[in-house]
């Protein structure tokens, strides 16, 4: 239970951090005193963030109520699954957050924010074959008698 909660929190924090970083572009000024994004840019920038996390968070939160997969046979297997899911999730979420934060870190350019968020979605989309099955299986696994999940 606790392990699942840790993974869920990582996903939710990644989601909220991405939204906060995207929102910050609307309030920050660059070195020349110019707005980085205009209020009209909010929806086009937020949309891919919501769509991206929506698919994963929908599955994860859904599996809190529905667990279709059998539990691990041993604690060791369970621990390994958790380790795998944790590492994959951290790499995945941090990669996405990095691309959302790109313009904060390296400065603005024309169309930069949307382009980098788009790049994050694409690259994490390529990485999803690593993270999606692991996470979905981990979250969808029934709690075993000995397992500490």
């Amino acid at each position, binding site marked *: 239970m606790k392990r699942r909660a840790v993974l869920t929190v990582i996903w939710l924090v990644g989601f909220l951090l991405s939204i906060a970083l995207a929102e910050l*572009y609307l309030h920050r*000024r*660059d070195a*020349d*005193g*110019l*707005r*980085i*994004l*205009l209020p*009209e*840019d909010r929806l086009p920038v937020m949309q891919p963030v919501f769509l991206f996390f929506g698919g994963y968070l929908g599955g994860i939160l859904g599996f809190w109520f529905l667990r279709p997969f059998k539990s691990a046979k041993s604690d060791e297997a369970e621990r390994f699954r958790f380790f795998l899911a944790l590492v994959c999730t951290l790499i995945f979420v941090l990669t996405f957050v990095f691309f959302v934060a790109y*313009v904060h870190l390296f400065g*603005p*350019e*024309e*169309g*930069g*924010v*949307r382009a980098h968020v788009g790049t994050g979605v694409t690259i994490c989309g390529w990485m999803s074959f690593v993270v999606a099955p692991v996470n979905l299986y981990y979250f969808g696994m029934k709690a075993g008698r000995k397992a500490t999940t």
Partner: protein
Amino acid sequence: MNRPTTLARRANLKLVLMSGVLTLGACAPAEYVTIPFEYLSMAAGNEGVRDVVVLRPGDEQRAVSDALFLAVQTLEHGIVKPEVAAGAMLPTGEVLETGFVKLSPEIIEQHNKASATAKLPPDRLYRLSYRVEYSIGDRRIDLRVWPHLQQRGSGGEWRDDTPDYSGRFFTDRLRGEIERSLKQARGQR
């Protein structure tokens, strides 16, 4: 109770749609400009007055086309539509479209000083293009100008939905350049 007729409802809908389009401000409404001119023979006795545009009879279109081309270039735009071969005249009665040029903060400041109501916030980037249609009448050059302003943040993409701006200000810049070019050309023709 009087119920609105279908026509009235359609008119209302049109008004709502039109106000929506105007609010978006993709292209300012057309500004009409007239530049009067005299023919060379008529102005012969008036050589001292340099403030009159003087054209040679039969040479009006060439002169206006060259002046328009030069004015657009002076403002750092280029004609992008229609494609015109080098040395060819710009067609009359056809909408010409220029490329976009970034506006400096100084121009935005001038705009805000010149316009009493429409102010452009200085905390963003702007670029401008023109659509221009010209025709030559009896001792007058008629221009229809649609200035097209776009804005963006430093990390965003160009957008049409700008705050209200003075199309007259940007039209007057173009008009000023055209007149200057026409007057400069006077001595060279």
